[in-house]
């Protein structure tokens, strides 16, 4: 791809700016590190560097997520031609030392090895810019090739060719369901007769333990704007909405800045990239309801109504926002798009497995040594993720299971850790890929308690529209509570199983239909833990097992 003059100028300008600095110190200011005081660290670094004087210029770059969130604040020292030096758990004292010793001996304390599996085994597509660019500076995005895919698509490809490229890539929806993205785009492209259509980005990430979308939005917001506009060109829409949860103030701030900067740079709004294509994006901020991640509830919420799902069909592709054909994709799905058009759909299809192409971002949480964000090719085994990259269980414990897919997913026991991570394999194990949360559970934890935790979540997040989900999750929660509090009878377990089936089969939307999954999957692999808590069918109470 030839770089058009418009882009080359901006790239040159940014490179010239960067060349002035021999040293660049990246400080992660994404929510994970910010919560451990990285903004103060950045200020200390700036102050200390100023003391160095003008002869030794140094730039402090406030960047997005570098991945190892559990050991923040993270700082990386980039020097011309050298491998960056990374530091974890940076204290104000260490920050001063780093800034003072930029030229000489860098401090050895709290150094991270860039070759450790956590970093070395990653393949970064979605996160290619995370931790390297200032998310609030559009020039940094331009310097990394940003918006060139959009320009290429608008200049060179027809909407049909755009859709075909996505079909070629084999990309599947990253929000959880794994629906083929190309198919979704072509459905929306064919829906309606040239009338109004919409493109919506679902950024209402709400699974406990999942923060992939937050990291993408905080670290590289322009990427989403670019992906959504390419989608707009493909399906024939000129208006986009990003539905983002209100609990992500930093992501909202970065997106707001990105939208303003993109408009000013003619990368958004009227005549995008100087073509005849118009596209504008607005933010819609969620008010804390998990169910609004369900697409029909999300639509209702954007329209200003109570965020409750409605029966499908009609699907949003046909009848979405204000009754118009609407394309809804997840943050990570859109984040893949610019890379697909830069490198080609074939390139993307070569990553991953037969049915699951590309990479997937996972959030490692729970009892794991290296907690944070990783991006790995599909098909990698759970063992590699948990034991090698994640460094196993914290404080030397042993891993019992890993919970994937949030409240709609399930628990995969340690004996199945050789299984590859792709949509089909996880489903076979009674879990789902989900949006990418992985919670590591150690031997000390009770699986019944895990199930109760997720059921409580579903119960309090049920919108209350349909009866099986509203009343059923409350009953399921109570049954799990009975088991754990020693109130179980011989009927508790059979009733639990039957109600799971009722809720799963009869609920209106995905939230209710998948709410029993954490119970069903723990019942499948850890049934003995349930049985130990319930009286035996002959009426005699078994020994109470305390876990």
């Amino acid at each position: 791809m030839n770089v058009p003059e418009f882009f080359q100028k901006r790239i040159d300008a940014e490179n010239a700016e960067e060349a002035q600095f021999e040293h660049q110190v990246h400080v992660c200011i994404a929510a994970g590190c910010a919560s451990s005081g990285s903004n103060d660290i950045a200020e200390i670094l700036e102050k200390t560097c100023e003391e160095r004087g003008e002869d030794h210029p140094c730039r402090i770059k406030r960047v997005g997520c570098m991945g190892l969130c559990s050991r923040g604040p993270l700082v990386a020292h980039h020097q011309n031609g050298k491998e960056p030096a990374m530091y974890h758990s940076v204290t104000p004292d260490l920050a001063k030392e780093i800034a003072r010793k930029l030229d000489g001996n860098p401090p050895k304390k709290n150094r991270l090895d860039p070759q450790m599996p956590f970093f070395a085994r990653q393949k970064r597509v979605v996160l290619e810019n995370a931790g390297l660019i200032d998310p609030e500076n559009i020039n940094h995005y331009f310097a990394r090739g940003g918006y060139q895919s959009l320009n290429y698509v608008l200049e060179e490809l027809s909407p049909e060719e755009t859709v075909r490229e996505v079909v070629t890539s084999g990309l599947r929806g990253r929000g959880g369901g794994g629906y083929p993205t190309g198919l979704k785009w072509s459905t929306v492209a064919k829906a309606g007769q040239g009338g109004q259509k919409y493109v919506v980005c679902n950024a209402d990430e709400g699974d406990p333990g999942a923060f992939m979308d937050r990291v993408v939005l905080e670290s590289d917001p322009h990427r989403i704007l670019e992906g959504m506009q390419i989608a707009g060109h493909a399906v024939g829409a000129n208006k986009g909405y990003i539905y983002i949860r209100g609990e992500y103030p930093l992501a909202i701030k970065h997106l707001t800045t990105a939208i303003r900067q993109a408009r000013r740079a003619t990368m958004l709004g009227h005549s995008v990239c100087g073509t005849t294509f118009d596209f504008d994006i607005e933010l819609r901020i969620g008010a804390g309801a998990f169910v609004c991640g369900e697409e029909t509830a999300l639509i209702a919420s954007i329209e200003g109504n109570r965020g409750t799902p409605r029966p499908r069909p009609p699907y949003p592709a046909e009848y979405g926002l204000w009754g118009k054909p609407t394309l809804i994709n997840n943050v990570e799905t859109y984040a893949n798009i610019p890379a697909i058009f830069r490198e080609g759909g074939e390139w993307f299809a070569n990553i991953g497995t037969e049915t699951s192409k590309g990479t997937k971002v996972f959030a490692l949480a729970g009892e794991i040594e290296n907690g944070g964000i990783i991006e790995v090719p599909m098909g990698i085994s759970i063992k590699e993720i948990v034991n090698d990259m994640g460094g196993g269980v914290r404080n030397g414990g042993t891993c019992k299971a890993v919970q994937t897919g949030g409240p709609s997913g399930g628990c995969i026991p340690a004996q199945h850790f050789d299984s590859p991570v792709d949509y089909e394999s996880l489903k076979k194990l009674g879990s789902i890929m989900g949006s990418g949360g992985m919670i590591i559970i150690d031997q000390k934890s009770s699986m019944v308690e895990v199930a109760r935790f997720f059921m409580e979540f579903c119960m309090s997040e049920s919108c209350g529209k349909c009866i099986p989900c509203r009343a059923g999750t409350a009953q399921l929660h109570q049954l799990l509570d009975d088991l754990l509090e020693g109130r179980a009878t011989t009927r508790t377990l059979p009733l639990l199983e039957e109600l799971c089936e009722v809720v799963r089969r009869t609920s209106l939307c995905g939230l209710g239909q998948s709410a029993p999954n954490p119970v069903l999957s723990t019942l499948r692999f850890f049934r003995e833990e349930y049985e130990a808590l319930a009286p035996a069918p002959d009426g005699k109470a078994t020994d109470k097992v305390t876990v």
Partner: protein
Amino acid sequence: MLASGQIKTLKIDGRDVSAHENQTILEVARENGIKIPTLCFLEGLSVRGSCRLCLVAIKGSPRLEPACTTRCREGMEVETDNPELHQFRKRILELIFAERNHVCSVCVSNGHCELQALGAEFGLTHVEVAYQFPNMPLDLSHDRFVVDHNRCILCARCIRVCDEIEGAHTWDMMGRGKDARIISDMNEPWGESESCTSCGKCVQVCPTGALFEKGKSVAEMAKQRQFLPYLTIMRGGKR
């Protein structure tokens, strides 16, 4: 395409039936005398698909679909009842009975209640799941009507009739999950509602004794719904 819309033929419980393109399974089933239990559905109001009692099995579809919102398709084979569906419906009714305080013997709608009738039809002699006994209030502030949240099943018929037929939109819902509850205006006492026209349509469409007329004692509150088909015709057709 035909101007009047296409005609589809399908099978419901093994019987060949015909349907307009826009007709739902429930409409066609009722036309042909096939009974499907419903609670949130009421002819003349928009469909909601929330009570899940009208779920039917469709051949080739892995999911159960609500008959009230699913449109007929050519060659569709629908099963409206089987042991599994029967058991699901019974459990759903059980969940409703246990959710709030449905005490028929002291209810104004005893003998005139759709929920009670369905319970009897499904032979619901006892409830196995745990009674929740939530502490629910009554609102007696209106001159003529009462809302008793203990009996409410959140079917939203009152919300729909008030919005779609009366045009007042006095009722709506607040809270979520088991804490969801119908409210008048911005959660103000019904008697102080400025939008309420006191037409009483909500009371008449309520399937249980959650909304009733003042002065009615146990088993006296029979609902009058003759007005609804007339009003929907006058408003220019079915919704």
